[in-house]
């Protein structure tokens, strides 16, 4: 007889601003099992667990806990139902002690109750022991290491008598030894009859710990399998596999000299190390890899936001030192960051001011801004890039996502760069703008620009790149020419 079902999510559908994140996904969790959720970046895993923990409400679909339908799931209800979530970044109060953090979940919330410190400590010590760790309950949480904090979270989940424990990439920041300790704690959870929903990019962990696997792709569930019935290759094939028709493919253009050359580049504090590659005029180099593999960090090293502490950068054949964004701009490197809304454009400023922000010397004479030159330059980009706006004086905050992205692009084109680094250039952009941005990238490359494109979008990576560099754990593991690249190969390289 199979173990009782603890949680049943049925036909869950969720859209964000018209973009379907989940479509009719069903998944169930049984007592005493570890159930892995796998899928590529953006497959919908995070949205699904947010719905399970009540952080986000589904548009359609139902959730049953222990056979009872939950009418309204919010974080408070989830806790009352015995659902606990543990994230990659532990969500503890850093300035409180371990005992206080654990006590918060099971002590009554009455404000004027008396606190029995001795029993608090005893309880915390017992729970930590049953999670497999001996941590002093009087230590402040901020003094604990990341894995110790995760153990505290597990102890807290046990203290709350959680029957359903959801873990989102808990091992992303852990070493192998620490992962083993975490697995020990997970084993203890299942001995107590709890069910664990486990999300991880590391497939070996999935095979080592999960009883069943559910595969998500583009917001849909492909099904659930017992782990024993799958092998690694099959699982990877399930995770990828979609057609490439949505991409505007890059034209082949004659490539020129190497513009940007990087040898053994490192920035130890962010984990980027020994990165070596080169990009030619007219080339688009795709930068693939999983979220957290160090792609954005590498871009920030190249742009001087995190000055390199090892290795060298050559631009157009001469060694350069890039210690700040101003250095990078002076050497012809432009960077359109991923988080466009926060770092790419200044939302309060007009299109004109945003477009000229990185190239003010070009539209200024002796420090005085030539407003006419500035406007005509902006107008040219508005028509070149087909930015849709009422006027060039409209604040960028009033534009759509795709058009904001184009303004960010215009700013860098105005600096006449030799190399442009684009971090997730079409993330959160509608399909029409996406095709336009792809076409634009193609024509920029044809005009001799070298482009480094970070992308988590497989079709984009395969369709737009001349070569694809795959990053894992802070360094480039392999560079694959387009002709040889397949989704399976790239995912294989990214997973390691």
């Amino acid at each position: 007889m199979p173990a009782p079902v603890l949680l049943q999510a049925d036909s869950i559908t969720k859209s964000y601003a018209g973009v379907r994140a989940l479509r009719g996904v069903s998944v169930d969790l049984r007592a005493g099992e570890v159930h892995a959720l796998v899928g590529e970046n953006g497959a919908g895993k995070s949205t699904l667990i947010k719905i399970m923990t009540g952080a986000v409400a589904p548009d359609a679909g139902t959730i049953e806990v222990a056979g009872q339908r939950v009418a309204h799931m919010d974080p408070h209800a989830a806790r009352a139902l015995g659902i606990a979530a543990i994230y990659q970044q532990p969500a503890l109060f850093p300035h409180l002690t371990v005992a206080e953090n654990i006590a918060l979940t099971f002590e009554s919330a009455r404000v004027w109750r008396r606190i029995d410190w001795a029993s608090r400590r005893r309880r915390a010590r017992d729970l930590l022991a049953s999670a497999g760790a001996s941590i002093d309950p009087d230590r402040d949480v901020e003094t604990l290491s990341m894995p110790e904090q995760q153990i505290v979270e597990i102890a807290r989940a046990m203290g709350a008598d959680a029957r359903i424990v959801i873990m989102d990439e808990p091992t992303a920041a852990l070493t192998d030894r620490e992962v083993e300790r975490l697995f020990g704690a997970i084993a203890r959870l299942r001995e107590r009859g709890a069910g664990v929903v486990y999300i991880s990019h590391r497939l070996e962990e999935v095979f080592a710990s999960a009883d069943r696997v559910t595969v998500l792709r583009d917001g849909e569930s492909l099904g659930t399998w017992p782990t024993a019935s799958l092998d690694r290759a099959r699982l990877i094939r399930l995770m990828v596999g979609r057609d490439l028709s949505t991409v505007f493919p890059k034209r082949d253009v004659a490539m020129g000299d190497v513009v940007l050359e990087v040898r053994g580049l490192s920035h130890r504090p962010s984990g980027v190390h020994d990165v070596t590659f080169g990009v030619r005029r007219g080339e688009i180099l795709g930068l693939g890899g999983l979220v957290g593999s160090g792609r954005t960090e590498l871009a920030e090293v190249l742009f001087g936001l995190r000055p390199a502490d090892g290795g060298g950068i050559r631009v157009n054949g001469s060694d350069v030192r890039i210690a700040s964004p101003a250095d990078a701009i002076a050497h012809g490197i432009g960077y359109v960051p991923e988080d466009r809304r926060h770092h790419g454009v200044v939302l309060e400023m007009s299109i004109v001011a945003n477009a000229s922000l990185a190239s003010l010397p070009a539209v200024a004479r002796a420090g005085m801004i030539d407003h006419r030159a500035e406007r005509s330059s902006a107008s040219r980009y508005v028509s070149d890039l087909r930015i849709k706006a009422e006027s060039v004086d409209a604040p960028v905050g009033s534009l759509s996502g795709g058009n904001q992205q184009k303004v960010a692009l215009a700013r860098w084109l105005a600096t006449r760069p030799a190399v442009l680094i684009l971090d997730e250039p079409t993330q959160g952009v509608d399909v029409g703008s996406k095709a336009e941005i792809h076409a634009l990238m193609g024509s920029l490359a044809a005009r001799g620009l070298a482009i480094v494109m970070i992308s988590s979008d497989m079709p984009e990576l395969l369709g737009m790149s001349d070569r694809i560099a795959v990053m894992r754990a802070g360094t480039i593991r392999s560079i694959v020419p387009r002709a040889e690249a397949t989704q399976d190969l790239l995912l294989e390289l990214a997973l390691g």
Partner: protein
Amino acid sequence: MADRRTGSLLAALAAVCALLAIAAPGFFSRENLIDVLLGNVPVLIVALGATLVLLTGEIDISVGSVFAICGVVAGVTALAGAPMAITIVATCAAGALLGALNGALVAYAALPSIVVTLATMVALRDGLRWATQGAWVQDLPDSFQWFGLSQSSYPIVACGIAALLQAALAYGLRHVAAGRAVYATGSDPDAARLAGFDVAGVKAAVFTIAGALTGLAAIVNDVRFNQVPSNAGIGLEMKVIAAVVVGGTAIRGGRGTMTGTLLGVALLAIVGPALVFLGVSAYWERAIQGAIILAAVALDAWRLRRRQPGLSRAAVQPS
């Protein structure tokens, strides 16, 4: 960026003036107008600097103490027999130095400006009290008072200095590339950094300029008398920040104009004397100024809320 705030301020100014014209035409006598004007020229000069600081998203509440120290520096320099030009330069330099100290702590030590300038406000004030033992600088040479000019030409010079600064800074913010850096720093420091601006340098610079302007304001103020008090400028920071905020500069930075600041200073300047002329107790002055500030800030918050819907919605992002 002549926004709606300019319009509302002009309307409010016009309303107060109209009220005065009907109820107390004596307000518009030549002597009274010059009095109000001269009393507020220093406030305006300090407020211009404070606008720069607020535009970058920082705040400087030490201006009152800096103002007092600069005044004493001016007095001591003049007493030592320095020519007026040297006295002016020394006073501005003292202000710039103290501003640079604030700026360095905020920009390079990354300390919150409200804490830094609260500390310097208290420390500088008490340091001055200790150094002077509360004594005023007295028996200043004739060349000090009225800048060595006649009493009748002084108002023209003082107003001329303020007007020139006002125009130069308003022009600079709009037409000089460095002005764009100030707005970008306040709107979105990360985006400014990505666009290649030296955000820390911008912050250090605005504090230094604000300090120099405070020094200039101190000497413009102090030449009206032949002695310099060692306890000047108490509460100046409130007057100045109130005027800047009423003038439409966002307390979080990135938005505001020098014209707005001019109008803000003007509005708060006539409210107090207007009360006296209208026969209302002067004790109401601060309460009414407070109400004006609250109204200005509330108006800002309301407009901002209308423009960007709730945080709760923005926080839920697809992943």
